[in-house]
């Protein structure tokens, strides 16, 4: 379980806090979506929940980050990396820059953990299979498309088999097929007990994979509830988040005076 309690965070050199009194718990096997307009603090929350802020980024954090019952205060970044990983939205900055092939790129994380070679190989193959990247094994990481690079970046983290994964706009560069692949992989991980926090603008993905959604606005949690409740809440549009396609369709139909049977749009909130 990953737990943030009363977390208020301020970047070094800034007078104002970016996050205010955040209380967030992500249980084992739970997939939590994080939505909010630009500048609402989603990326900062990802950094704080991963412990990188303040451990690596600096700044000032009040409140606590607890992972699997242990406080992460004062932990070094490599200790954090053994428990929680975070995937950033720009795949180019996540490339190690030292691997000649995609396989090596994915293997770097497990290698850094000091694992024996057979274990590194097994984890790398499994992570690549999970995202169906086997055909890229021999490719140069520098010569991949944006979407492929992002999938490789995610696979690189999955290969470390962390208990907790945080993804900051993981599908920003992905086409619908790639987004679906990521969704499937995340569900598989959750079934194995991994807890996931996904910051995304694509609410359709969150609608499909998350059991809970947290909405952030101006550094504060303004909604926290089941996926259905939050994604159909009118306040979501007010803060600048677009609801998923089927919710927009439902609203359009209601606005047009069409009587919708819940069975017609399966799973759609009536």
């Amino acid at each position: 379980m990953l737990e943030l309690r009363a977390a208020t965070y301020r970047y070094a050199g800034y007078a104002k806090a970016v996050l205010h009194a955040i209380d967030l718990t992500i249980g084992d096997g739970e997939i939590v979506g994080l939505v909010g307009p630009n500048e609402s603090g989603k990326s900062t929350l990802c950094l704080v929940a991963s412990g990188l802020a303040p451990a690596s980024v600096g700044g000032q954090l009040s409140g606590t980050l607890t992972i699997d019952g242990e406080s992460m205060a004062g932990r070094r970044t490599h200790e954090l990396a053994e428990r929680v990983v975070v995937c950033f939205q720009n795949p180019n900055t996540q490339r190690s820059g030292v691997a000649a092939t995609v396989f090596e790129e994915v293997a770097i994380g497990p290698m850094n953990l000091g694992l024996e070679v057979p274990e590194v190989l097994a984890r790398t193959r499994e992570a690549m299979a999970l995202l169906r990247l086997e055909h890229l094994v021999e490719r140069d990481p520098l010569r991949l498309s944006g979407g492929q690079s992002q999938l490789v970046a995610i696979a690189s983290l999955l290969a470390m088999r962390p208990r907790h994964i945080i993804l900051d706009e993981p599908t920003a560069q992905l086409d619908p097929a790639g987004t679906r692949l990521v969704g499937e992989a995340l569900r598989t991980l959750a079934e194995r007990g991994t807890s996931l926090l996904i910051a995304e603008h694509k609410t359709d993905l969150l609608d499909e994979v998350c059991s809970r959604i947290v909405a952030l606005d101006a550094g504060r949690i303004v909604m926290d509830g089941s996926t259905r409740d939050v994604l159909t809440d009118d306040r979501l549009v007010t803060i600048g988040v677009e609801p998923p396609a089927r919710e927009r369709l439902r609203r359009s139909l209601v606005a047009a005076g069409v009587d919708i049977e819940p069975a017609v749009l399966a799973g759609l909130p009536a």
Partner: protein
Amino acid sequence: MAATVQSIGAFVIGGYAGPLAIILLTVLPAAIVAGVAGRLIRISFLLTLPIAISVVLVSVFTRAGTTVLFSVGPFDATAEGVNFAGQTLVRLFAISTSIGLFGLTTNPRAFVLDLERRGLSPRFAFVALATLEAVPAMVERATVIQAAQRARGLDTEGSLRARLRGILPLVGPVILSSLTEVEERSLALEVRAFGRPGRRHLLWTIPDSRTQFVVRLALVVVFVALVALRASGSIAGLP
């Protein structure tokens, strides 16, 4: 190892015979076998040329000697100076060909990873590899930025002047964008446990036969012998 011994050998052995023997009997045959002889000679020549020019000018005209070959203004070119310049040049060429051969026949990644396997710090290995990989990444970034600048009407083709003018709007964005990515890049590395202390088990195995091991051992012996002979005065240095 071979490049080191060849370079040191060329340095400690005086005269023409030693460095020439190193070039003709060890470097060139190896370069021919590796199929890089032509490139090696071209690269070594280009690498040596700037130093060679200054060595020739300084040695020929400033070295004191009794046999004056010709004079240019107040400077006398002496036979002793020509001899000294000649010996220095063969040494330089021997050193540059041995290092050039190493560069042309060694995969830099394999080299650094083998060093890590032999005890080099993973951090140092990363820095070395990242530096090697940074060049193509920068070139790619520059290409993208150049395309973006062209799309906005910047003329980067045509005369030399136009091309030079096109470089300036390229340099700033390339450097600045590289710097702004540094933080996220370092965070991404930390997430992948880069800072974890201790050794890591590498996936790569560099082939290393028993013959290669014996040759390396022999080279160490040759190296020690050369240094010892030179220190004892058994091998002459430069005149």
